[in-house]
């Protein structure tokens, strides 16, 4: 596994997927674990008769906010300031990290407790703060596991989904002193609770991500099941919240819609255990909100890519994706994996391969609670790669030939009848090498009697 996450950004998706697929039992287990989440999601969605209406409302209210973002961001800032919240703006990850460091340095913070934030992952904040002598403690159990293992998250909601309990047991034995060989999830969770409680009680500051920022209230909403965000934000006197510009919603009504779909679509729960609305600092405390662009306004210049900013990070598209489930979170060359990772990360991928980590089956789009047209966005990324002449896998060499070949009836018909004949008369062992990567895990098809065109002319043309 080490080989996988250390190869970050340097190898094409297919190569990394290949490494993940070497352990077939683990791949099957990974795929089933995620499919279980999809099934729970289906049951939760089906229990709400108005589910499709909620998806439509979610989509439209996010689109509305995105198309009036200048107004809503300014309203949010004004309302926050009226509530005693300090608002900062950051153009990119670097500026975000510097703002955070300045706030922490002013308060001489030595230990920061953090709850889950994909944005801070995107900005690579932890290593930056650590370089400046600040201890950063991830407090979500899954995040703490991967932090102790020195790995990035492999899923946006269940970040340690790729690890087996025995591996977590070994890790905790080494790092937290739990009993050797003990892998019971209850025992390990309790050990993490005790270990992190000590961190919460001695932290100098807390940081969380933001699920929604409510413009007309000047409040941020943070959703967790574990209560780690709230244990953090309410013990030390300094609380920080980082949010992308896409997190704003107009009002409480909008938040109500998204709170109905978020957890149901993520894990099948009717709502997360805690949905906390912070509207100002605690007594004698300080509250800071950092609003980050980091490429989002650039994405909005493209009408199709812009819709990926409707995403509320439920992770539903990862759980349903046949490619993600069988290639793992470390094969995407980006912090966020799966369909949404391709949508928002394809530009960052130096191998240009991740838009092809997709069968265009559309299952992601079908389950998305805000109707992000993921398959359309991914196909669009392929076009963008072609236009910028950065097609991967040698496609720029052979795809024009394939195009010419498929556009010619004669060439197509002649070669297909030759292929049918070959499949009938030649042994599989001789033909298999010609099927390339496709044939690696598949058997060659049984050749049909005739072409579809011949069959159609005979049976249906009259």
């Amino acid at each position, binding site marked *: 596994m080490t080989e996988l996450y250390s190869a970050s950004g340097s190898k094409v998706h297919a190569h990394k997927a290949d490494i993940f697929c070497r352990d077939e039992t683990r791949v099957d287990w990974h795929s089933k*674990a995620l499919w279980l989440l999809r099934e729970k999601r289906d049951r939760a969605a089906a229990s709400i008769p108005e589910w499709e209406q909620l998806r*439509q409302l979610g989509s*439209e*209210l996010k689109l*509305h906010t*995105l*198309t*009036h*973002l*200048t107004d809503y*961001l*300014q309203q949010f800032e004004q309302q926050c300031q009226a509530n*005693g919240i300090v608002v900062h*703006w*950051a*153009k990119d990850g670097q500026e975000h990290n510097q703002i955070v460091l300045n706030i922490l340095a002013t308060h001489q913070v030595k230990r920061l407790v953090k709850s889950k934030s994909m944005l801070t992952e995107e900005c690579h904040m932890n290593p930056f703060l650590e370089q400046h002598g600040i201890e950063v403690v991830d407090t979500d*159990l899954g995040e703490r*596991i991967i932090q102790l293992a020195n790995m990035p998250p492999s899923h946006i909601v*269940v970040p*340690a*989904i790729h*690890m087996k309990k025995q591996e*977590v047991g070994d890790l905790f034995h080494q790092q937290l002193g739990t009993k050797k060989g003990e892998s019971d*999830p209850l025992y390990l*969770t309790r050990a993490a*609770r005790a270990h992190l*409680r000590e961190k919460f009680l001695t932290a100098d500051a807390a940081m969380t991500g933001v699920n929604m920022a409510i413009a007309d209230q000047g409040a941020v909403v943070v959703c967790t*099941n*574990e*209560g*780690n965000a*709230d*244990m953090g934000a*309410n*013990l030390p006197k300094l609380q920080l919240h980082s949010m992308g*510009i896409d997190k704003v919603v107009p009002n*409480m*009504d909008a938040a109500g*819609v998204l709170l*109905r779909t978020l957890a149901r679509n993520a*894990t099948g*729960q*009717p*709502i997360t*255990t*805690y*949905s*906390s*609305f*912070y*509207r*100002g*600092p*605690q*007594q004698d405390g300080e509250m800071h909100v950092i609003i980050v*662009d980091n490429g989002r*306004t650039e994405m*909005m210049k493209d*009408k199709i890519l*812009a819709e990926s900013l409707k995403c509320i990070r439920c992770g539903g598209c990862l759980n349903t994706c046949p490619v993600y489930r069988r290639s793992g979170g470390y094969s995407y060359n980006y912090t966020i994996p799966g369909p949404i990772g391709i949508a928002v990360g394809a530009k960052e991928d130096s191998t240009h391969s991740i838009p092809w980590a997709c069968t265009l089956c559309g299952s992601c789009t079908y389950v998305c609670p805000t109707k992000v047209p993921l398959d359309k966005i991914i196909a669009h990324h392929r076009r963008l790669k072609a236009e910028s002449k950065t097609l991967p896998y040698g496609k720029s060499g052979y795809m024009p030939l394939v195009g010419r070949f498929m556009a010619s009836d004669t060439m197509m018909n002649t070669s297909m009848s030759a292929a049918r004949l070959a499949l009938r008369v030649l042994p599989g062992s001789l033909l298999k090498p010609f099927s390339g990567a496709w044939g690696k895990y598949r058997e060659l098809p049984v050749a049909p009697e005739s072409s579809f065109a011949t069959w159609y002319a005979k049976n249906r043309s009259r």
Partner: protein
Amino acid sequence: MSSKNSILSALSQSALTAHPMPNIEVEVTPQPLVETFAASLVTVAGELHQHGGLAALQAKVDELMAQKLQVLSLVEGVSGNRQVPNTAHELADIDYAILAGELGVAENGAIWVSQTQHRVTPFICENLILALPEKALVANMHQAVNQVSLAQGALGVFVAGPSKTADIEQALVVGAHGACSLQVYLY
């Protein structure tokens, strides 16, 4: 140009065309409130005491105190054996916190709790008990968000059951960082 201005000016180049705010009118599924709430609370691993009201809650608290457990009650008419301390950190050894639930949501078992002093109280206690008026039940989140109010400096939180996690092989473990159990007394 400040970062704020440069972000706002970059937004003016957005390719999206204005989309109106949708009308959020969702029909309420007709369901009995108490029964639906009770079922939802079970789903989120909470426990409901439907009968007996605050008297039953006080009896429970007396029982806990007899076991020498540390009980803090912020509910009027229910008394525990601990007072609100000066600092939030001193709440670390509270075994049971008894707080007022202001609103309950039938569709998901969530209960609105708002806290101005020591906002960490509902999370840091080992176990949480909420007293919830039966008349404060609503059907769904659309109704809920319209009825809750958020004071400046307050933390308002929808609490749905005890803290939980499934981060290790998706095995559900109740009791992560927040309270390890949630009991709800309707009155």
